[in-house]
Every structure is written in C-alpha cells, then in structure tokens.
C-alpha cells in the first residue's frame, strides 16, 4: 500500500507540470490582458504595470520563473493544515493583479476554508439524504417508495442550483423569514452560533443536487448487490433485513457512490461559483471563475493548480477506501 501511494504521488508531478503548462499557454493566449479596461491606461503606465508584475519578460522566461516559484521547497505540515502554501511548501503563487497588494497564496488561504466548510456540510448532508433514500428505493424496487423518491431525485439532478438557490432564498428568506437570504456570517456578531442561520440555505441548496445523484447511484449499486449470491446466503441464514442491508449489502452497494465522491468532493470543496454568487459567499469558487474573466493570470494558475492537487489527492483517497472496502480489489499502480 505504501508503494502504491508513493507511486501515485510521484505520478502527480508530471500531471501537474502538464496542467500548469497548458493553463499557462491558454490563459496567456486569451485576448485582452489584466490591465485592459474601458478607460485606457496611458502606454507608459501600462509599461510600468507590466514591469511591476514581470509581464514584460519574454513568455518562456515568465513561464520558467513561475515554475521556479511554485516548486515546493520545504514541508511544514502545521502550516499546510492552515492551507498556508507559502509556509507549508515554500510555494509562491505570485501577486494577484485584480486584488492589488494581495498574493494568490493569501487569497487561497482566506477563501478555501470558507469553501471547505460549505462543501463539507453540503456533502455530509447529501450523503445523509442520498444514501437512505437510495437504499429504501432499492429495497422497495418498482413500488411507490421507489418511483416517488427517484422521480424527485431526477428532478433534483435536472434543477440547476441557480434556479433552486433563488427559490429557496425567496421562500425561506423573504417569505418565511427563517434564514438570511445571503451572506456567510453575522458581521458584527458576537457568537459563532450567530453565523449558523447564514449557512443553512447555501448548504442545503448545494447538497440537494448531489443528494439526488447519490440517491440514484446508491439505488443502482444496491440493486446490483441485492441480487448477489452472498446476500441470498445471508438472508437464508435468517438475518434480518436491516442487518443484511447495513452490514452486507451497503458496503458493496456504495462503491459507485464512493468513486463518484472523489471528483465531487474536490469540486464542492473548492467552491461552487454559482452558489457563492447567489448567496454572497467569499469562497474559492468565485476566484476560480472571476480570475479568468479578469485575466488575473497568477490567480487563474493558482486556483487551477490548487484544484488539480485537490482532485488528485481526493481520487487517491477514494482509491484507497475502495480497496479497503472491497477485498476483490488490490493495490496496484
């Protein structure tokens, strides 16, 4: 297992180099630049700005300089846990051109925890809703208990969050006045509990889409498992439905859900642009999209790199869990 993890981590290096190189090439070939605006900047000022951000050098030099700066130079787990890449790895993602005087490292350190909290609770809620619903549907195949929740789940998958978000804000925020319509924390609030109402609507909105997907995958996985011989054996032994389901079937039935969770977690944890825009949440997803629109080269590269590492690490984690759960699978590179 150790060898497996090590090989996967080593594979990370060429993958990241390719990703950064491609992103660099794409973002630099897009028309316009970080300083293009409706009111033109005088030529000599533009020159100085480019100089300040090192954009006057030939592209290949800028590329190598960037690569040099992002290379990990040290390892400090304590700082990494705080998402501080500068202290943790010695990785310098450069200054942002959109957020004057702030570095990409600072922006990620500031915004990722927000996306993380939002994503963590959304995924947890999605699992809490999706798995039971999917299981119940599978156990009651082709009955009202199956068709009802599954149609609802299909509806949930089809309904985008930019529709669901404003509807929730309208019903629970404006009509019922249960929760604030947007924001991430009670500004000027004294207690952490003051922040909770702000987080309910975005978490629920974000989770429902994934809950729907998880329910459908759980149902599919469970149906396949429930027809297997070992389940029949378990039933024949006289075990109760609950024990058969929870102890024997669920473990294998959740495989599709777990492999689905890898990329989903990376996506959700690094922020959902639409949810962040609707609910005014200061997360990483906004940087991810807006950086490209603002041609904030370093922020585009920084967020892409961060997202790539996250997605690879989470996929690795998923693979490990899959092997641990399924004795038929083995670690192999």
């Amino acid at each position, binding site marked *: 297992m150790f060898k497996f993890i090590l090989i996967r981590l080593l594979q990370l290096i060429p993958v990241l180099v390719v990703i950064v190189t491609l992103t660099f090439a794409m973002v630099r070939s897009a028309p*316009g630049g970080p300083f293009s605006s409706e009111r033109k900047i005088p030529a000599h*000022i533009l020159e100085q700005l480019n100089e300040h951000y090192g954009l006057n050098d030939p592209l290949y030099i800028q590329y190598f300089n960037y690569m040099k700066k992002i290379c990990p130079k040290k390892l400090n787990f304590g700082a990494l846990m705080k998402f501080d890449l500068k202290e943790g790895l010695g990785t310098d993602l450069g200054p942002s051109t959109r957020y004057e005087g702030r570095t990409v490292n600072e922006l990620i350190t500031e915004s990722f925890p927000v996306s993380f909290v939002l994503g963590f609770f959304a995924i947890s809620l999605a699992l809490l809703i999706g798995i039971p619903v999917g299981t119940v549907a599978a156990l009651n195949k082709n009955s009202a208990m199956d068709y009802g929740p599954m149609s609802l789940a299909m509806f949930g998958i089809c309904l985008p969050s930019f529709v669901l978000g404003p509807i929730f804000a309208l019903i629970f925020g404006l009509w019922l006045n249960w929760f604030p319509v*947007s924001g991430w924390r009670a500004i000027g609030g004294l207690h952490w509990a003051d922040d909770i109402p702000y987080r309910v609507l975005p978490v629920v909105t974000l989770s429902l889409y994934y809950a729907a997907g998880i329910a459908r995958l759980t149902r599919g996985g469970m149906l396949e498992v429930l027809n297997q011989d070992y389940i029949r054996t378990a039933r024949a032994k006289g075990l109760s439905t609950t024990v058969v389901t929870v102890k024997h079937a669920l473990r294998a039935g959740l495989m599709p859900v777990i492999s689905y969770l890898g990329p989903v977690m990376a996506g959700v944890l690094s922020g959902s642009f639409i949810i962040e825009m609707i609910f005014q949440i200061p997360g990483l997803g906004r940087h991810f999209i807006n950086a490209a629109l603002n041609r904030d080269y370093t922020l585009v590269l920084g967020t892409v790199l961060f997202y790539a590492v996250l997605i690879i690490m989470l996929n690795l984690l998923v693979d490990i869990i899959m092997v641990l759960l399924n004795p038929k699978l083995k670690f192999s590179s």
Partner: protein
Amino acid sequence: MTCQRVFIAPIIILICFNLFVGCGSKQTGVERANEAGILLRGNQSEPKTLDPHVATGVPENHIITTLMEGLIAYHPTDDTAIEPGMAESFETNEAGDVYTFHIRDAKWSNGDSVTAHDFDYSYRRILTPELACEYVTMLFVVKNAKKYFESRSDDTAPVVTWEKVGIKALDEKTLQITLNAPMAYFPMMLKHYSWFPVNPRVIEAHGGISSRNGEWMKVGNHVSNGPFRLKEWSTNQVLEVEKNPLYWDADTVKLNGIRFLPVESADTEERLFRNGQLHLTYMVPLHKIDLYKNKHPEKIRLDPYLGSYFYRVNVTQEGPLSDKRVRRALALSIDRESLMKNVLKGGQTPAHFYVPPGINGYTSIEFLSFDPTEARRLLAEAGFPDGKGFPVYEILYNTRDDHKTIAESIQQMWKQTLGINIQIINQEWKVYLDAQSSLEYDISRAGWIADYVDPYTFLEMFTTGNGNNDTGWSNKRYDELIRLAPLAGDDKKRFAMLNEAEAILMDDLPILPIYIYTMPFLIDSSVKNWNPKLLDNRNMKYIWLEQSGE
C-alpha cells in the same frame, strides 16, 4: 415507514431550527444597524485597492472618499460647489495660475499632523513612474509635472528635478501649486481621489514611495485623514469603516460606521435589500425597476448620472460606414424615445447629443432627432436606396442582457426604417475591449462616465490618436479646439469652444449617441440627506440614519 421518516426528518429539523433562531431578536439587519448608527451599503465588487494613488474604480471611490480627504471635499448637494476639506482656505494670483492653499489644523488617524509637506510627498508619489498611477495625467496640469514624470521614466528625456515642479510646501501649513496655464475649474479637479494625500511616515514604513505592495492599507497599518478609519476588511465579504475620532470635523460626522458589501449580482443585492440587510443598493435589476416604480416608489431612486451610452462606428473601413451620410442616416433612424419608454424603462434620457446635461453653464445643442424620412433620403443619396446593396454589418457588444436588448431593438429599427440588415454579436468583456481598441469591429456599444463634472472629460477622448478614441476618427479643427479650450481662461469662452467641438463631433458622427445614464438604486427610508449627485460622489459625514419611531 423508513421512507416517510427520511422526508419528515429534515422538515422537523428545519422547524426546530426556526424555533431556535426565533428565540433571538426578529429585528432586521437594517433596524439593528440603525440603532448602532451603521450604514449598510451595497458596493458591487471587492475593492481592488484602498490606495488613492493606485485606485481607478467606482466601488473604490466610494470607500476611499470616506477614509481620505483632499484639499477640497464633496459638497452634500451641489457638485459645482467648493466644500472646504484639508484646505481651510485658498487664493489664486491675478493670472489664475498659482493657487495657494492654507492647510487646516487637522490630524491623521494615528495622531500625526496633516501638513503641506504631506501633500508635497503625495504628489511626488503619484508622479513616480514605478508606482504606475493610472490617473497620473490628472496631475499634468501642474507646471513641469509631466516633464518630471517623463524625465524619470524615459532615460533620453532631459532631467527635471522635483524643485522645478510647481508644487511647493512654503511652510508646514501652506501649499502652493503652480499650473501650466490659468484653470478656473482646477479646484473641482482636486475633489478627485488622485489628489488626496497619504501619510508619508506610513508609506515609508511599508515599502516606500514607489512601492505597490499594499502593505500600508491593511487593517492595523492603514492611516486616514477623513471622517472614517478602516476597521475590518475581509475579501469578498465586507469592508467596514468606523468614525475617526481625530477627524477635524468629527462633530459633524453622524454615522458611527459604514459597511460596504461587495455584492456582484444585482438579483442577490435586491434580495438583501428586501431582506432588510442593506440600506442602499449599488444597482437595481432591469426587470425590477418597473415593479418598484409601481409598488414601492419610495424605495427606488432614479437619479441623474453624468454618463453617455453610445455606439462607436469604425470609420477606418472602406465602404459605407466611412461615409458621413450613412452614419447620419443610422443616427436619425434610432427612435430613442421609444427605446427609453418601452425597452429600458429606467428613467434614462434619450441622447440627442453627446455630452450629458446637468453641467453648470454648459448646454448641448439638440443635434439628432428621430427622422425616418431624412434618414432614408441620406441613405439613398449615399447610393443605397431602400437599403439595397448595403453590406451586412455587425453591432458588437459585451455580453450582458441590457446591451443585447438595446442592440436587438436598434437592429429592428434600422431594418424597418432603412431596410438594411445588421447582425449582432456579443463577446466576453476583455475580448470585446481588445476588438474595440484594435478597430476590429463595424459598430460597437460603448459608454463613458465623467471623471469630473465638466464637458471636457467627454470630448477630450475623441482627439486624433487618443487611447480612448477607438473609432479611427480624426478632425484637425476638433483637435485644435480641445487643445485650446483649457487655456481659454474663463468658462464662457471655454464652453463656447467645447460646444463647437461637440458640434463637429455630432456633424461627423463617429459615434451614435443613444441615451444618457441614470443611476437607479434602492434606498431604505431611514437614510437621510442622500441627495442626487451627478457622479454619486458623497461626503459621507453629512449622511445620517433615522431610527423608526423618531
């Protein structure tokens, strides 16, 4: 059974939660803020910077003008009035090209005194090429300022020392500014934040005069001389300022603080307002304007705004668009009144001219009206009777719903009146800017907001080769008028010259004016003294909040 539980459980949780939340106060954010004397303001986007010498945008302007104060401040009602700021008084020499300012006894928020030397340092800072201040040209009206800047950015230019520049701190409290030529509207220019001072001790402690590292403007480092000081700044979340007790006129400041919320989505902002979390919005979604006008007219304001919406025409292409008669035909076949009444509905004024109304002493002549007959005649004269043989041109706009609606309407009007087919094409903002400045378009949507209350800020951009011209249009007489107008001495002569320039522009029509902007926003009834201002420039010390029941 299990299934029902699955569905009922979240509902029960929600209800319990509501009871829990309900135990707290049911006051809205605005009501709580009214008690605390804090204004909650939607401010569109996260400020790029708080440095007055680096900033360029409107959201930044809203914040910087609460933190910093220049020699002259904004007047609560009158855009052309001179409200004393850091300068207690000032006088000019007879020729009108030397201004002497007497700095009042004021303090920075860290206790330092505000001196004439601080202004001297600040202006030297803007004129430092490494700082790359985008508004540096504002200071080029000062004697030798341009030469000083060039001598430092260009090795081949003759050396000009700071002593030669027309900015002198005569003593601690006296600042003298010598201009290139007499300029009656110079005090008006001083209201712009590029003329604001920064504290030299603070700048030197955080990177020095040419540094753009932004360290000095972080919470804890920031030092201000205006009515408020920086309290909290969380990216994409909130920027809060609180009353500055050391401000020279602190007794007049009524608010205890202001929270600026960077809400990029107009719909989210409107929901925040309805939810009682904002006193003021930055914008109103187009589709909500009618609704508010009909149902809550007391909550919506459509204030005049000094901005012009127009179409640029690329006159460098060979073909009909380089023919002035064709451009005139296009301009005369836009039914602006109908566009405002039926499509935009935001109280905008149809633009029969280019420079927006409202500038004291300057009135544009009505150049363009809806005249289909004349438009058809001109097009026929240019060789395209009933639009026959007219090439298919494109209207370019940056991707946004309102630009699209306007382009579609105009496409339809030209089809109906002139019988010509036009296509419309949208591009992402930066791609659109690139296409516009490299003249890779036929007709392109554009807008211009004044930097200061003067027609010059609108007309100067269409001189030959100006970076903001973007039409390829050039006219010698026009260039000459724009060059000579600032030297005219008195406003009457100056405005006459600018009027002539505008007439030339409206005769040649490298641009097709469409409408004059309004400033639509939502406002809570507790906000007092929020008067219409042409550029939405406010002196926040005069704003106050009324608690309900008062």
